C-alpha cells in the first residue's frame, strides 16, 4: 500500500486539465452571450456614421466593424481568468489529487484553451456580421473593400486575437492571485492603474503602445509570450505557498 507508484506532475496536471475543461464548460455561455451582445451592438448602427451633401444630393456612409466582438471577448477572458483564482473555483479541486503547481498548470491550460476558442470565435463572428449585412443590406451600397475579407487576414486576425487574449488572461490571473494573497490588492491594483494612468500618462501609454503599435507579428508574438510567461510565472510563485482555504 505504501509503495504506490509515484505520481508525476504532468499526468496529474493533464488529468486536471481535462476535468476543468468539462467542469468549467459553463463559462462558455458567458462568451457566447458577450459575443452575441457585441454582434447586436455592431449591427445596430455601425461604429460611425458620416453624412454630407450639397443642394442636389446627399451622401452618407455607415461604417461597421466586428472589433467590438473581440473587445467583449477580451473582457470575458479577463473575468474568466480572475474567476479561476477564486475560492469557489479552488474548492472544486479539493476532491482531486492536486498541489499548487498542478492546479496552476491546469488552470493555465484551461485558460489557453479558452483563449484559442475565444480568439477563433470572436474573429469568426466578423464573418457572421458580414454575412448578416450581405443579406440585410442593399448589396449595391456595400463597399467591397475590406468587406471581402482576405483569408490570410482572417488567419492573422485569429492569431492576434488569441495572443491578446493570452496576455489579458495572464493579467487577470495575476490580479486574481494577488487579491487572494491580500484583499488589500482589490483596492491597490485599481488605484495603481488609475494613478499611473493619471500621473505618468506617457509611461502608461508606452506600456500599451508596446503591444498595440508593434507591427511585426513575430515580434508581437514574442512580446506577448514573454510577458505572459512572466505574468503566469509570478502567479505560480505567489500562489505556491498559499494554503487552501475553505
Amino acid at each position, binding site marked *: 500500500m505504501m509503495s504506490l507508484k509515484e505520481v508525476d506532475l504532468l499526468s496529474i496536471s493533464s488529468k486536471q486539465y481535462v476535468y476543468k475543461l468539462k467542469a468549467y464548460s459553463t463559462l462558455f455561455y*458567458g462568451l457566447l452571450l458577450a459575443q452575441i451582445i457585441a454582434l447586436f451592438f455592431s449591427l445596430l448602427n455601425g461604429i460611425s456614421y458620416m453624412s454630407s451633401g450639397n443642394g442636389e444630393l446627399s*451622401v*452618407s456612409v455607415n461604417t461597421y466593424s466586428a472589433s467590438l466582438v473581440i473587445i467583449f471577448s477580451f473582457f470575458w477572458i479577463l473575468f474568466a481568468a480572475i474567476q479561476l483564482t477564486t475560492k469557489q473555483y479552488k474548492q472544486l479541486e479539493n476532491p482531486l489529487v492536486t498541489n499548487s503547481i498542478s492546479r496552476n498548470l491546469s488552470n493555465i491550460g484551461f485558460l489557453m484553451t479558452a483563449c484559442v476558442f475565444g480568439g477563433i470565435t470572436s474573429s*469568426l463572428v466578423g464573418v457572421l456580421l458580414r454575412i448578416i449585412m450581405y443579406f440585410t443590406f442593399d448589396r*449595391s451600397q456595400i463597399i467591397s473593400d*475590406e468587406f471581402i475579407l482576405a483569408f490570410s487576414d482572417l488567419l492573422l*486576425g485569429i492569431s492576434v486575437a488569441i495572443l491578446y487574449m493570452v496576455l489579458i488572461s495572464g493579467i487577470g490571473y495575476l490580479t486574481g492571485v494577488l487579491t487572494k494573497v491580500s484583499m488589500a490588492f482589490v483596492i491597490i491594483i485599481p488605484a495603481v492603474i488609475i494613478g499611473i494612468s493619471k500621473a505618468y500618462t506617457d509611461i502608461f501609454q508606452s506600456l500599451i503602445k508596446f503591444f498595440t503599435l508593434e507591427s511585426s507579428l513575430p515580434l508581437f508574438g514574442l512580446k506577448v509570450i514573454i510577458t505572459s510567461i512572466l505574468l503566469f510565472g509570478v502567479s505560480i510563485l505567489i500562489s505556491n505557498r498559499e494554503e487552501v482555504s475553505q
Partner: protein
Amino acid sequence: MSRVLPQILLFLIGIAIVFIFKSKSPKFFRFSSWKLSVLVAGLYLGVLIMLVPILYMLPNKDFVKIVENKDQAIASSSNLMNNLYNQHFPTEGDLDKLEGIYKNSDQTFKLDSSKLSFDLQPGTENYHVLIERKELDDGEIDVSTYVTAQYVGEVNFTKRLLPPAISVDNGMLSLRAPDRQTFEFKQFNIDFTMAQFNNQNSSIHEMSPHFANQIIFIRVPQSLEINRGVSGDRIQII
C-alpha cells in the same frame, strides 16, 4: 471625445451584462451539464467555421468596388473646370477621352424652329452649358451630359448620378435637374487585430466627399439662331 464616449458606454453595458450574468446565472447556465455545454460550444464553433466558405461563395459583383485612381480622376476633373473658367473649351471628343469624366446621357432632338432659346430651371445653377455649332444644317440638336468625378472617400459613384431631364419644344430647350438624390454606403472596417499588422489604419477611413460638376454639351446646326436669354452667362458658345 464625443465619438469615444458612446463606445465606452457600450463597454460598460457589456461589463454590466457579463457581471449580472455571472452573479445571477440562470438555472440553465448554472446546471447545464458539461456535455450540453461542450456540444453547444462545438456547434457554435462549427457554424462559425462553416460561415467562412459561405462568405467566399457569396457573389460580390453588386458591391461598390474601388478600382480607379481617385487622385488622377479628381485632378483631370478640376483641370477641366479650370479650363472652362479660363474659356478654354474642350471639344466633345476631348471630353470623352478625359479620365474621371463620364457621359451621363446622350439625346438627339428634331429641331422645329429656326431659333433656340433656353429654360434653365431652378436647381441647375451649377450646370455648365456648352454649345458647339455643327458643320452642317441637319435640323437636329445633339445633347450629351457629362459629369465630373464624384467621390466619397475612395468610392467613385459618378456613374450613379442621374442626368438632368432635357426636352426641346417649340425652339425652347428646357433643362431640369433631377430630384434630390441620396446615396448610402456601408463600409466595413477590418478588426483592429488584423489592421495592426496589415499596414492599415484601423481608425475610421476618411470619408470626405468630393462633389461633381455637370456639363451639358449641346451640338446645334450651323445656322441656328441662339438666344441665350436671362441666364445667358451660364451658356457658353464655343
